[in-house]
C-alpha cells in the first residue's frame, strides 16, 4: 500500500501547485434537512479556481448530499451557494446556467443505455450548448481519445466494462467544457483492476488545472492530487487540511478513528 502511494505520488509531478485567487464555489452556512433529519449542518467551504478538494468521511455523513447541492440535484434550505459568480436560487434559468458549467461523475456512471458512447457525449453539447452535430462529434472524439476509448465510440454502454463506462462518463462531462468537475465516489463501484484506469484520467485532469471536488476514499489519489482534504461526519465538516498534515497529523479523534479504519486494510 505504502509503496503504491509513493509510486502514484511520483508519477504525478506536473500537478500545478499555484492556485488562482478567484473563487469558483462558495458555500456559506449551508443547512439542509430531509424531513426532520438534519443532513447538512452549517457547511462553509470556499473552492478557488483550479483547486482540487477531496472529501472523505463515513457512509451517511452527507458527502454526496453536499456536492449534489452544488448543482441543485438537492435543494438546500438555509445558507448561500455561489458557483462561478452565480448564486443558486429557485430560478430555473439560474440552475440550468450553473449546471452547464458544472460537470458531475456518479458512482454508478449513469450513462444513457439507449445511446451509443458517442451520442452520450454529444447529447448535451447539441441540446444545451446548441452546438452543430459535427462540431460536437469532433469534440467528443477528442475527449474519448483523451480517456483512451476512441474505438468504442459506436458501442453501447452496456457493452463496455465498468472502468470504460466511468471513463466515458468523465468524457461526457468534459464535452460540456465545464469549469468545475464534481466526482461522487467515481471508483467505488469498480473492480480493483479498473480503479487505476479511472484514477489516471482524473490525475490527468488535475494536471490540466481543472477545479475538482472529489468524494473518494482513494487516499493515494488524495495525497497526490488534493490541495485540501475535507473530513465530514454527521453532516458537519470536522476537519479540513492540506493532505500531508491531514494524513500524518490528524487533529480530531473522529478523523483519527476514520483514517485508522480505512488505512488498516
Amino acid at each position: 500500500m505504502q509503496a503504491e502511494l509513493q509510486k502514484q505520488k511520483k508519477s504525478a509531478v506536473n500537478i500545478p501547485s499555484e492556485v488562482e485567487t478567484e473563487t469558483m464555489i462558495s458555500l456559506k452556512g449551508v443547512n439542509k434537512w430531509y424531513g426532520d433529519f438534519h443532513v447538512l449542518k452549517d457547511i462553509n467551504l470556499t473552492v478557488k479556481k483550479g483547486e482540487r478538494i477531496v472529501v472523505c468521511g463515513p457512509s451517511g455523513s452527507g458527502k454526496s448530499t453536499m456536492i449534489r447541492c452544488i448543482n441543485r440535484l438537492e435543494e438546500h434550505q438555509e445558507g448561500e451557494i455561489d458557483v462561478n459568480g452565480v448564486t443558486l436560487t429557485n430560478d430555473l434559468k439560474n440552475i440550468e446556467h450553473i449546471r452547464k458549467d458544472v460537470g458531475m461523475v456518479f458512482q454508478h456512471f449513469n450513462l444513457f443505455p439507449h445511446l451509443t458512447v458517442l451520442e452520450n457525449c454529444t447529447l448535451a453539447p447539441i441540446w444545451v450548448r446548441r452546438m452543430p452535430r459535427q462540431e460536437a462529434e469532433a469534440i467528443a472524439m477528442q475527449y474519448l481519445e483523451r480517456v483512451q476509448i476512441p474505438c468504442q465510440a459506436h458501442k453501447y454502454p452496456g457493452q463496455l466494462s465498468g472502468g470504460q463506462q466511468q471513463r466515458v462518463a468523465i468524457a461526457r462531462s468534459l464535452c460540456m467544457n465545464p469549469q468545475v468537475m464534481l466526482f461522487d465516489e467515481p471508483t467505488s463501484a469498480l473492480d480493483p483492476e479498473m480503479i487505476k484506469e479511472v484514477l489516471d484520467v482524473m490525475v490527468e485532469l488535475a494536471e490540466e488545472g481543472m477545479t475538482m471536488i472529489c468524494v473518494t476514499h482513494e487516499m493515494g489519489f488524495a495525497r497526490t492530487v488534493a490541495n485540501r482534504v475535507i473530513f465530514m461526519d454527521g453532516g458537519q465538516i470536522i476537519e479540513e487540511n492540506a493532505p500531508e498534515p491531514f494524513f500524518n497529523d490528524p487533529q480530531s479523534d473522529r478523523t483519527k478513528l476514520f483514517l485508522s479504519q480505512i488505512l488498516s486494510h
Partner: protein
Amino acid sequence: MIVNPETIPSRPAPASRRGIIGWLRANLFSSPLNSLLSLSGLIFLAWALPPVVQWVFLEANFLGENKDACTSEGACWVFVSARFQQFLYGFYPDTELWRVNLFFFEMAAVLTWVLWDKMPKRLWGGIWFLTGFPLTSFFLLYGGFGLETVETHKWGGLMLTLVLSLVGMVIALPVGILLALGRRSDMPAISSFCTVFIELWRGVPLITILFMASVMLPLFVPGDIELDKLIRAMIGISLFEAALIAEVIRGGLQAMPKGQYEAADAMGLTYWQGMRQIIMPQVLKISIPGIVNTFVQLFKDTSLVLIIGLFDLLAVMQAGIADVNWPNVAIEGFVFTGFVFWLFCFGISRYSQLLERKLDTGHKS
C-alpha cells in the same frame, strides 16, 4: 502444485445437444413428465386437426350467390364471399368504394413507411402519419373538395373498425404520455387533475363510456351543435385508452433508475429535453409489451360500438347472420370475424416483438 500452461481448445457440443434430435430432446422430451405431455399433445392434435381441416377447407363451399350454393357438409364460406363488400365497407355507397380503397392503400403505405426501418425519411413518414394522413383520410371517407359527402352512419365493417382503432391509438399514446408525466408532476394542481382523470376513466367500463357518450354528451353540448355519433365514440374510446396507456407509461417511468434523471439534470438539460431525449425513449422501450397489450385490447374493444348503433365488422356480421335468407351461418360468421381480428392483433404483436429485439442495446440494469 499444479501448473497448466496449455490453453485447452474449444470443442463442438456433443451430438445429442445439436440439430433436430437435440432440439426435440431439449424441448419436448427432457423429462418423463415432459415426454408424457408432448405425447398427449400430439395425440390430441391427431384427433382434433383432421375434422377442422375438413370443415374449413376440404368440404367447404367458397363461391356462389346465396345459401343454395352451400351443398356440402363443411363450412359455408359463400356467406362471407357474398357479403364481402359489407364486411369491408359497411353500407358505403357502391359508386364511392374507390375512396375507401384509396384510404386502405394510403394506410398500408404510410404504416409501411413508418414501421419498416429500411424506409428512407421515416421521420417525415411519422409526421405525415399524424397530420396529412388523418386529413386526407377524412376528406376521402367523409367528403368535401368536390367529393360527395358520405354520412358516418353509412360507414361500417372493417373500415370502421380500422378508423376507430387508428384514431384511438394515435390520440391515446400522446395523451397517455402527458397524463403519466402529469400524474408524477411536482405541481399538486396538475398531478391531482391527472390522477382524478385517469382513475375516473379507467374505473368505468368502456360500454358505460360509450353509452354516456351517445346519450349524455348531447345534453351538455350547447344548442344546435350536433356532435356526430362516430366522433363521440372516438372521443370516448380515445380518452378511455389514454387513461390505460397513462398507467402503462407510469409503470415504465417508475422502473427508470433515478440516476438517469439525475444525469440528465446534471448536464443542464431542461425538463422537456430530458424527457424527450433520455427518459421517454427508454420508458417507451420497456413499456412496449404493455402498450401493445393495450392497443390489442383497444382493437378488439372497438366492436363494442355495436351497442350505440355503429356497424363495425362484428356488427355487420351479426346483422348478416340474422338475415332469414342465410340460416345457420353463425359459426362461419364468428369464425371469419374472429380470424380477421386475430390476424390484425397477431400482426401488431409480432411487430412489437421485432421492435423489442431491434431496440435491445444489450443493457440490463
